[in-house]
């Protein structure tokens, strides 16, 4: 057991994977000698050498494409894109190749790769260093998409992603890289992909979230409990395939649902969650589903960032409003 931060958990999972499986290789910009911008790969190059922890030129399309080629030949590449905002040239390889290789070859080629990238706002950085575009990736059949919200889940889910036979996109919320420590058993045990985590039980309202926003979800639930509103907090953790059963089961019990995400509202993954509930649990709903999200804007800089990021009070207000329906 160790008390570690989320970024340390990522590093520990990468080290464990490199140790246990010689097919695992890491590649990306500044991941080697420098240990990564956020230090996620710190020390791995020294320990495992440059054949397995490889610095690449600034070439995002090729980083992703090389990972596809390696994966198709039996390696287990873990590629890093330095910030989510730089991922777009890599999206071509992910969407057009990584996601389809298995289907296109009718299973003769697989693509057991992971593509990691830090993402999300809250570090006062501009535009591409702050956005949350997970919905784009969740929309692509063939890709899996994981977003951890705690050190323990980062550790277990990253190991699962690396061991998974399909391509997994793994987004790490920078805002909580070092926001807190948690006891993690560094025993190489993975956590299941595609399963949600119920972080707090409650009978009055279901609150669905993922990534860094889970912190605000838990804080809001704590505050609402003081008002006599018991909130069930569900961390989806995997957005594709996502655990609809966990959400539907909870909503059937509570009859109310608030969805919280950091990404802008329109076309966000919250819309998918809401649609599924409407399709399959409408008869259980006592109130309209509410979404608490960023507005539909480009992430603004420091001075307006708090207006972009959903706040605990926004969640509380949405919950109170939903509770008023009888």
């Amino acid at each position, binding site marked *: 057991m160790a008390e570690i931060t989320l970024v340390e958990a990522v590093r520990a999972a990468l080290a464990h994977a490199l140790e246990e499986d010689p097919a695992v290789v890491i590649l990306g910009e500044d991941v080697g*000698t*420098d240990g990564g*911008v956020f230090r996620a790969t710190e020390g791995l190059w020294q320990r495992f050498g440059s054949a397995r922890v490889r*610095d690449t030129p600034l*070439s995002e399309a090729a980083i992703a494409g090389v990972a596809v080629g390696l994966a198709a030949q039996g390696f287990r590449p873990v590629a890093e894109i330095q910030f989510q905002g730089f991922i777009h040239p890599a999206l071509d390889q992910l969407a057009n190749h990584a996601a389809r290789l298995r289907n296109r070859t009718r299973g003769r080629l697989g693509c057991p790769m992971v593509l990691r990238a830090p993402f999300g706002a809250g570090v006062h950085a*501009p535009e591409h260093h702050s956005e949350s575009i997970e919905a784009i990736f969740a929309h692509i059949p063939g890709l899996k998409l994981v977003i951890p919200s705690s050190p323990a889940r980062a550790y277990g889910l990253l190991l699962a992603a690396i061991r998974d036979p399909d391509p997994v996109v793994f987004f790490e919320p920078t805002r909580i890289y070092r926001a807190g420590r948690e006891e993690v058993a560094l025993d190489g045990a993975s956590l299941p992909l595609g399963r949600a985590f119920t972080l707090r039980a409650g009978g009055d309202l279901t609150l669905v979230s993922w990534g860094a926003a889970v912190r605000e979800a838990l804080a809001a639930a704590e505050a609402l409990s003081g008002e006599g509103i018991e909130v069930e907090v569900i961390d989806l953790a995997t957005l594709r395939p996502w655990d609809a059963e966990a959400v539907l089961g909870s909503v059937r019990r509570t009859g109310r649902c608030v969805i919280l995400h950091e990404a802008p509202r329109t076309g966000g993954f919250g819309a998918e969650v809401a649609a599924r509930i409407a399709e399959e649990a409408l008869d259980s709903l006592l109130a309209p589903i509410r979404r608490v999200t960023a507005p539909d804007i480009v992430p603004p*800089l*420091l001075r*307006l960032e708090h207006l972009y990021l959903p706040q605990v009070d926004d969640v509380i207000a949405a919950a109170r409003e939903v509770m008023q329906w009888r």
Partner: protein
Amino acid sequence: MPEPAAAAEDNRPYIIRAYGPDALRGALLRMFLIRNFEEAAEASYMRGLVHGTMHLSIGQEAVAVGACLGLTESDKITSTHRGHGHCIAKGADVGRMFAEFFGKETGYCRGRGGSMHIADPAKGNLGANGIVGGGLPIAVGSALSAKRLGTGAVTVCFFGDGANNEGAFHEALNMAAIWKLPVVFLCENNRYGMSTSTERSTAVPRVALRAAAYAMPGVTVDGNDISAVAEAVDAATARGRAGEGPSLVECLTYRWRGHSKSDRNRYRSREEIEAWMARDPIPRFAALLVAHGIMSEDEVRAAEAEAERVIEAGLEFARAGPDPSVADLTRDVYTTEAP
């Protein structure tokens, strides 16, 4: 614009031959301004006034100023994440730049772009870019528009040595070449893209060699020698204006500071940094001006003091500016606000 070429026997440095005293004094002042601006930006960052990160160009001033010296306001530039110098060299107001850093309404982008996204279209600066290589194809589009409209304007596209490995670099150079566009691809080769040296990132020893693949001239010059930079860029812009197409100019230089504020400088040695600091482009240009009787030592010192005053006033302006209005949060995502 450079003045007509002087007589053949004149063996003074290019910049002295090609530019008059006012332009030369202005160039030195701009170099001082950039240096002082960067130092003040760094100090502001340390005091918590600037958030996120920022990329300083201390040591690279001769490239920005030399490249922009022969440009007019109708000529365009595209800039990079390390773009403060480009902005100033293209005539930006340092007060509005600081205001942008501090996230104020009086900043160039009304506090929305920050250090990495200053644009000053009125002066021909199409903008800095937080995406490495992002400006390359945009510069080609800008040059195509100049060609279509017959404006005679050239576009100078700044990019780093790291950017030359992005696909966008290769796509942009090829397109500019097949359409013979008035664009100058200006590589600031400061030896590193973040922690990765050009030796480890780039298959050719000189970025300029890549010009051959796109059938355009490519030259490598000492980027700490403003005269050499101006000479190469002026030749390239003349070629562009004459309809002969694009050029690649590689300027060898060095950033004294780390890549950004979180850099631990583990990939390079103290000795290397100090060797480059000894090749400071600013005193070098000042000495050239003094040697050729353009300025006295006292006038050089006065220019430096003038730059300090301008920077101080700029900081004052930025500090006094209002914060962005909350009511404006959703403005300018679209031309007309979404319902």
